[in-house]
């Protein structure tokens, strides 16, 4: 397989803060690649660099065989970008948004009209094409954004937190569409997200923390490297409970966003032992498989939601 994106030792700093701090990775053609990280991890800065908005401070980025620092105009023709903040003109109709977008890429006349119709049809927007973009629901607006991003037949689609503000139904629909798009059109997809369940649907993912790579691989590889089984206890005082468990048992214990997590396959006898040792201190005990949150905890030493932005 050939790489569409090669990033070598990329650094980008704002004044003294290094938002992206020495990232190296490759993305293959036809891949769905997710960039997972909490707020302040550097994923939006990385997205802005790749979408050609920011000039990288140092390092080498080769995107579709072109040097991102120099040949960004050529790159722009070949990538489609969907922003986190809606990039629709709310005072224009759905169709007008597409027409203006197309002209920016040199499409015009009948070709543009046909292509716009095709995208409206494909995203199920044909009956809403005359509606003002401002009157659409969040899920429909995302579909218009996708139609805009794909209008000029890009080789790569970049999406920055596309699920933000979408309800679970619309999120599932978006991901089904992306997976279908990769299969039918062979479009490579790069998506940033802070939803771990979403990142698990990607072919490969990178986990960023404070501008650095915490983990990189397929979801399966990353999950196998931790756990694989955990017992999670929801408690009113997780820190105290974790300490108490550590002092009495030899299990590996960590505090997570929800409570206390023990590396243990779990069994009824184990649960009984816990209940006898710490009566009244546990609200809920769950036996579960590893998730990307466990990967994050294992690599960074702190819970995903606890990361402080630098």
């Amino acid at each position, binding site marked *: 397989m050939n790489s569409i994106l090669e990033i070598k030792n990329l650094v*980008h*700093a*704002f*004044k003294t803060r290094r938002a992206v701090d020495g990232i190296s990775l490759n993305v293959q053609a036809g891949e769905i690649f997710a960039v997972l990280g909490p707020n302040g991890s550097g994923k939006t800065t990385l997205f802005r660099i790749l*979408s*050609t*908005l*920011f*000039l990288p*401070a140092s390092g080498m980025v080769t995107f579709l065989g072109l040097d991102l620092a120099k040949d*960004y*105009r050529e790159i*722009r*023709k070949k*990538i489609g*970008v969907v*922003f986190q*903040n*809606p*990039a*629709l*003109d*709310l*005072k*224009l109709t759905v169709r*007008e*948004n597409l*027409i*203006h*977008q197309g*002209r*920016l*890429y*040199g499409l*015009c006349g009948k070709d543009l009209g046909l292509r716009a119709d095709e995208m409206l049809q494909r995203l199920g927007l044909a009956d809403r094409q005359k509606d003002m973009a401002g009157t659409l629901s969040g899920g429909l607006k995302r579909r218009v954004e996708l139609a*805009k991003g794909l209008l000029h037949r890009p080789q790569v689609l970049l999406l920055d937190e596309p699920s933000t503000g979408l309800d679970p139904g619309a999120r599932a629909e978006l991901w089904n569409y992306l997976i279908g798009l990769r299969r039918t059109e062979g479009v490579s997809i790069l998506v940033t997200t802070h939803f771990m369940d979403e990142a698990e649907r990607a072919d490969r993912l990178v986990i960023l923390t404070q501008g650095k790579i915490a983990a990189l691989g397929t979801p399966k590889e990353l999950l196998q490297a931790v756990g694989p089984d955990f017992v999670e206890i929801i408690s009113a005082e997780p820190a105290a409970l974790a300490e108490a468990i550590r002092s009495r048992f030899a299990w590996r214990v960590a505090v997570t966003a929800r409570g206390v997590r023990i590396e243990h396959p779990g069994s009824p006898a184990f649960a009984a032992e816990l209940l006898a040792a710490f009566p009244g201190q546990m609200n809920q005990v769950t036996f579960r498989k590893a998730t990307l949150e466990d990967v994050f905890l294992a690599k960074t030493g702190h819970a995903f939601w606890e990361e402080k932005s630098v």
Partner: protein
Amino acid sequence: MNQGMLALYTLWLRELTRFFRQPSRVAGAIGTPLIFWFFLGSGLQGSFRMPSAENGLSEVSYLQYFLPGTILLVVLFTAIFSSISLIQDRNEGFLQSVLVSPAPAWAVVGGKVLGGTTMAVIQGILFIAAAPLAGMPLSFGMLAGFAFALFLNAFALSALGFALAWRFKSVQGFHAVMNLVLMPMWFLSGALFPPGGAPAWIRSAIQINPLSHGLALLRHALHGHLEAGSFLLSFSIVAGFGLFLIFYSQWAAASRRAGDVL
């Protein structure tokens, strides 16, 4: 059509479509100056005395004197609203897509500035319909000269709005510029009072203010009182000012940002 021109055309068309779909913007840009002109003009009418230094304007009433300055205010307001929409549009709007598209920077600047210019010209022409109310008959020749002066002013101020707004991340920051830079430039343009009666330091400020020269062109079109030499000077200053800002904006928009703006 050339790809850059196609992008410029579509961005210009988008500005106009948005404008006509937001009647409140038209009301804001025309209404406030109209109220200013009518109330201030009527109120000061009796107290106003043209300084003898202002040759050729002695027959002009205050309502008439204040009219070109009010039209300059209409143009300024239109440019300001257009600049504010630039900041919003870049943060969460269509402009984000424009900036990652292959459209060249000159097309982005040109579409926006010519869009703002067109809106200002349309509003200025609507406003001049008020002239007969102030006892100023309109003729075809006068309207042609006025439209030309209006276009130059609208172009220069739209370019100024773009150049200033491009540096700002938030609309709040831009409000400060509007109140501390743009409005004082208008106050010191000779829009409200004739320079002849003002202290020397104000007269100097008016002399170096590009808006004064824009106003001089409008006043020339409506009152016809400027001698040829200073018309050429004012024309060169306004056109030069606008072109300089266009080139500056093009340069600013073309350079990829290394990070956060103001």
